[in-house]
């Protein structure tokens, strides 16, 4: 079942065409990569999917429902979660609070219950706490729940961001350069983590990445974007040897 279907997606900013006629389809459960040189428009695609921008033309269909024009929070509620290139954790809040906020969209009690401190509030808070700690445990962050998010080392901040995104119980997880700033060992761990969460949480994953070892190692299918257009798609081996892709990255044909 095609979980995400992007058709003829186009977006311009002023005079600059960021995306032109992008078509992309992802099946349920796939692990797909989106690569391309800097400035190709990859993050713009993510921003369009998650509702930060509205497309000029084209359709974004998630789970057979059109999504273009919806507000970001609505898109998240439909089951799309994302992480950011430059980590947008709630820096001054604790690790636990960051995850609890992700659980808010399904809060098990009403506002009046919180204000009147009814029993449903206490039960609800207990279950939120339990659920949040569960995510922290999965990502090896328990014990740090009271720490301020910005005080965590970089690798743990990245893990927290992914944990937070997962806490919104998405069906589609979008990762924007998850390996940025990581050394080879950390990248290796990340690859295993990505594979594992795809299994464990029954997710579909779409990721942007520059680190080719991660992309080639983990993605089942890859789309290549250059100057706002898809220039190639296919399995990692096909992409690796595709002359157009090589040209896009290196400028001129390398023989």
């Amino acid at each position: 079942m095609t979980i995400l279907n992007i058709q003829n997606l186009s977006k311009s900013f002023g005079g600059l065409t960021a995306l032109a006629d992008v078509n992309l389809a992802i099946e349920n459960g796939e692990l797909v990569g989106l690569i391309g040189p800097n400035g190709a428009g990859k993050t713009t695609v993510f921003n369009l999917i998650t509702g930060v921008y509205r497309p000029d033309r084209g359709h974004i269909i998630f789970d057979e429902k059109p999504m273009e024009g919806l507000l970001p929070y609505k898109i998240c509620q439909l089951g799309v979660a994302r992480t950011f290139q430059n980590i947008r954790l709630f820096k001054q809040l604790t690790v636990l609070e960051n995850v609890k906020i992700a659980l808010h969209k399904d809060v098990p009690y009403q506002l009046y219950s919180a204000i009147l401190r009814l029993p449903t509030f206490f039960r609800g808070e207990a279950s939120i706490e339990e659920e949040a700690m569960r995510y922290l445990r999965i990502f090896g962050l328990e014990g740090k729940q009271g720490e301020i998010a910005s005080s965590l080392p970089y690798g743990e901040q990245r893990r927290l961001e992914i944990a937070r995104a997962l806490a919104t119980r998405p069906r589609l997880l979008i990762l924007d350069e998850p390996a940025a700033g990581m050394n080879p060992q950390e990248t290796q761990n990340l690859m295993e983590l990505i594979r594992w969460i795809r299994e464990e949480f029954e997710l579909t994953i779409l990721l942007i990445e520059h680190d080719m070892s991660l992309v080639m190692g983990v993605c089942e299918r890859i789309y290549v974007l250059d100057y706002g257009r898809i220039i190639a798609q296919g399995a990692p081996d096909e992409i690796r040897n595709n002359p157009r892709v090589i040209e896009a990255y290196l400028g001129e044909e390398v023989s």
Partner: protein
Amino acid sequence: MVEFLQQLLNGLSLGAIYALIALGYTMVYGIILLINFAHGDIMMVGAYVGFFSITMLGSNVIMAILFAMLACAVLGVLIEKIAYRPLRNSTRIAALITAIGASLFLEYVTIFFLTPQQRVFPAEAFPLHQYQIIGLYISNKDIFIIILAVVLMVLLQYIVKHTRAGKAMRAVSLDREAAMLMGISVDKTISFTFALGSALAAAAGVLIGLYYGTINPLMGIIPGLKAFVAAVLGGIGIIPGAMVGGFVMGILETMVSGYGSSMYRDAVAFGVLILILLIKPTGIFGRNESEKV
């Protein structure tokens, strides 16, 4: 029809004054993205300097204006250095709160030392003559105000477009870091911007003293707000916008006063502000911007 043209004419001198004040707001916002709440009060200080210059030093109006411009240029630079520079990398809200503090400070220090009583601008400083051209009344005060304002605005345009300092101002507004890398002293440029804007406001202050005849420590608040609306109307950060906005606000105000109720005169400014912010916050000449994610 004559009535309409008369109102239009009346609005020109008020508009010229608002334009002078609006320029200060717009230049400061353009360069450090701060709504300088204290700007109207700098205008007030200018008015007082002009007043004392005339009454205590016996200077003529032109000298009074020059003194005021000089004094306020210094004042503007001081305020920037003491209150705004430390917050240059803070949130805009923090800077706005500080600006509110600076505004209150100027107002109440003036009240403390000079009492809240209003002072009257001596009429001899500028004897009033009414003229009549094609059936419309205009006074020498109006003519003086309009001409002076236009001269100052032309001077400003020259500085901004044809001097290195002006170029530096434009560079810093566009991209502060790039300007720094080009060897432009950002601090000096920002100080210069404040000096220019404050000088213009000072001139406006003296002109208001002439126009209305009296000055008081809280006189900067309402005209300041109206001039701010003018700056937003024209497109905040855009210099020609402030000039256009100023004249529009002046004419609008005299129209509302003349045709409508003078009780709602001040509320019109707020109304215009809300309307602009809701319909086109970037103003008449502004372009749309969105946050990069």
